[in-house]
């Protein structure tokens, strides 16, 4: 089966994906899948979605030639897909704009979401505010601390932020808590998952809504450099920004797809968040995928400077792409990310999110393998205002 046609009718990408959830949720997943399938090819729905993307989000996002960064490496031309310029500052809004339309069609009055870095929480609170819907965001207490700017933004938007203290108090635990809320309030509530993770049909829905990024890039590449990109780089936590930009290119074999995971303190230390590099297939949050787990099947703790990548699992379609060798997955550690963060600020006048800085950090290793006649694209998944406190702390600066 071609990757383009996945997932299959049970929600699997090869052996990955599926719906591993408590029985109470099965009906809601079926309801969601039915709604999505009926609306996916509906002209009115698509018109509404694209109008919101254009008028509310500000799409299309530009494809920008990073001249000084290109000169710095002296190899392939580096282009930036500017998702950081979207309303709310990241790619996350593409998905929430789409999913809130599903919620509206399903008549749901209450919206819940999990968030790590807070970008998905902000994007969810934003679309809920716009429709006047009650909104609850689950966020690990550790992330509430390190992403306090986004917590305040969510509150301004009228959302209630629930700090989650269980487990490792990060993204994984926020997801657990959101799932528990959903089980409890199943009939009234729409759960907007923020990445290409979770049970089917979420990985498919989130991918499809984010695929607008890759679709735009096809046209922009032809227009600006007259061919397909030679390679596309994107950071991978759950993997929604990467999946969105990769997906329309899967069928173009000449385009290299490269995901960059968070190696935290280093892959060898075990303190990282890089399941595709150093994990094994397992089941978490309703889907089978590569997972950081121990020999007895317990999920391991993660470490990353970036809250948005600090997750032990990854979207099932990435696991499929890895096993098929259609995408490659690298990893960079925290100190490389900090260097890249500075470099992009200084050379391009762009403040990338720490998540996004992972993709930039991989250039050090990747660029020497490219040539001057090539064009590569980095998905600038989000802007880094939210990370100022973390960076100041890392560098011992008192703001």
């Amino acid at each position, binding site marked *: 089966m071609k990757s383009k046609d996945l997932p299959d009718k049970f929600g699997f990408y090869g052996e990955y994906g599926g719906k591993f959830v*408590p029985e109470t949720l099965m009906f809601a997943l079926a309801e969601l899948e039915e709604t999505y399938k009926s609306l996916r090819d509906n002209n009115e729905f698509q018109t509404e979605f694209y109008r919101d993307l254009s008028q509310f989000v500000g799409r299309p996002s530009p494809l920008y030639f990073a001249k000084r960064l290109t000169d710095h490496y002296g190899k392939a031309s580096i282009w930036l897909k500017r998702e950081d310029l979207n309303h709310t500052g990241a790619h996350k809004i593409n998905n929430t704009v789409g999913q809130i339309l599903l919620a509206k069609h399903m008549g749901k009055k209450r919206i819940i979401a999990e968030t790590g870095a807070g970008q998905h929480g902000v994007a969810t609170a934003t679309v809920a505010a716009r429709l006047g819907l009650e909104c609850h965001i689950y966020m690990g207490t550790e992330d509430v601390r390190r992403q306090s700017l986004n917590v305040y933004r969510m509150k301004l938007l009228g959302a209630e932020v629930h700090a989650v203290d269980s487990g490792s108090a990060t993204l994984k635990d926020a997801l657990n808590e959101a799932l*528990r809320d959903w*089980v*409890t309030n199943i009939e009234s509530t729409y759960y907007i998952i923020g990445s290409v993770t979770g049970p089917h049909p979420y990985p498919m829905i989130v991918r499809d809504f984010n695929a607008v990024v890759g679709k735009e890039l096809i046209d922009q590449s032809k227009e600006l450099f007259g061919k397909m990109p030679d390679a596309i780089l994107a950071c991978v936590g759950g993997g929604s920004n990467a999946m969105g930009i990769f997906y329309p290119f899967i069928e173009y074999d000449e385009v290299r797809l490269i995901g960059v995971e968070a190696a935290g303190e280093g892959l060898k230390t075990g303190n990282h968040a890089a399941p595709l590099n150093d994990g094994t297939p397992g089941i978490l949050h309703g889907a089978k995928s590569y997972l950081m787990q121990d020999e007895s099947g317990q999920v391991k703790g993660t470490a990353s400077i970036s809250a948005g990548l600090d997750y032990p699992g990854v979207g099932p379609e990435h696991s499929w792409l890895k096993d098929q060798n259609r995408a490659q997955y690298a990893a960079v550690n925290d100190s490389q990310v900090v260097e890249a963060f500075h470099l992009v600020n200084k050379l391009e006048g762009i403040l990338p999110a720490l998540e996004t800085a992972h993709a930039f950090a991989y250039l050090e290793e990747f660029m020497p393998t490219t040539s001057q006649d090539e064009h590569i694209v980095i998905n600038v998944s989000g802007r880094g205002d939210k990370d100022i406190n973390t960076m100041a702390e890392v560098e011992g600066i008192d703001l």
Partner: protein
Amino acid sequence: MNNLGKVLNHKKLNDEKVLVAYLVAGDPDLESSLDLMHLLVEAGVDIIELGVPFTDPIAEGPVIQKAHDRALKKNTDFKSIMNLVNKFRISNPQTPIILMGYINTFVTNKKLINMKDNGIDGVLVVDIPGEFNLADYEINNKKIDSISLISPTTSDDRIKTIVDQSSGFIYYVTLRGVTGSSHFDKSEIEFNIKKIKNLSNMPVMAGFGIKTTEDAAVLASYSDGVVIGSSIVDLIDKNSDKKDFESVKEYVTDIKEAISQ
């Protein structure tokens, strides 16, 4: 026939309600779990459900989540749980034991589940879709029943499929929510259990959120028995310091009496 089949048959013949008790293996430690298992049987428990701790138990409310965390801090793993079962079986060969937990640890430890004569009578995997069979995940032991959950939101079509894939008994989830929640809709529970019983000959146990003897008595009147989890786990936690679990015994004895009337 395994222990579970024998107990369920016996109960049916005598027209008695079944009492299933849940505790998390390794909470507060494995020695206490062993004592508690015997104590529960003495108090009148018919079937023991041993929770296998998992880092991310998404169907559990706060009480059982914390018990999972405590057990994991004591390094409770599948192997040590099997040792616990072996020790229990030395003096109690007959009380059915069901392992309840999450698919990731069950798949990882399938060899232990598939082992012959391991003392286990049933498994209940919370996050396996009801239309799949455990054999699809290479968990395949003829002596072990595969128990499934049916919830208030399960469609009629699915009830049929789930029943076909299950053995032992059906665990009817009495509410929308995680373990330990409250707010029953009694007429809905009665209606749904009747529906399941029309489609299956298996006994139906009611669980999730049963706290008081009154809850237990009412739900037992609609079903073949009840499952008590969070209340027991909570009492275990409150008495873990002194490891004096007399109050657990009293509570379970009261429940037993309530459902036997």
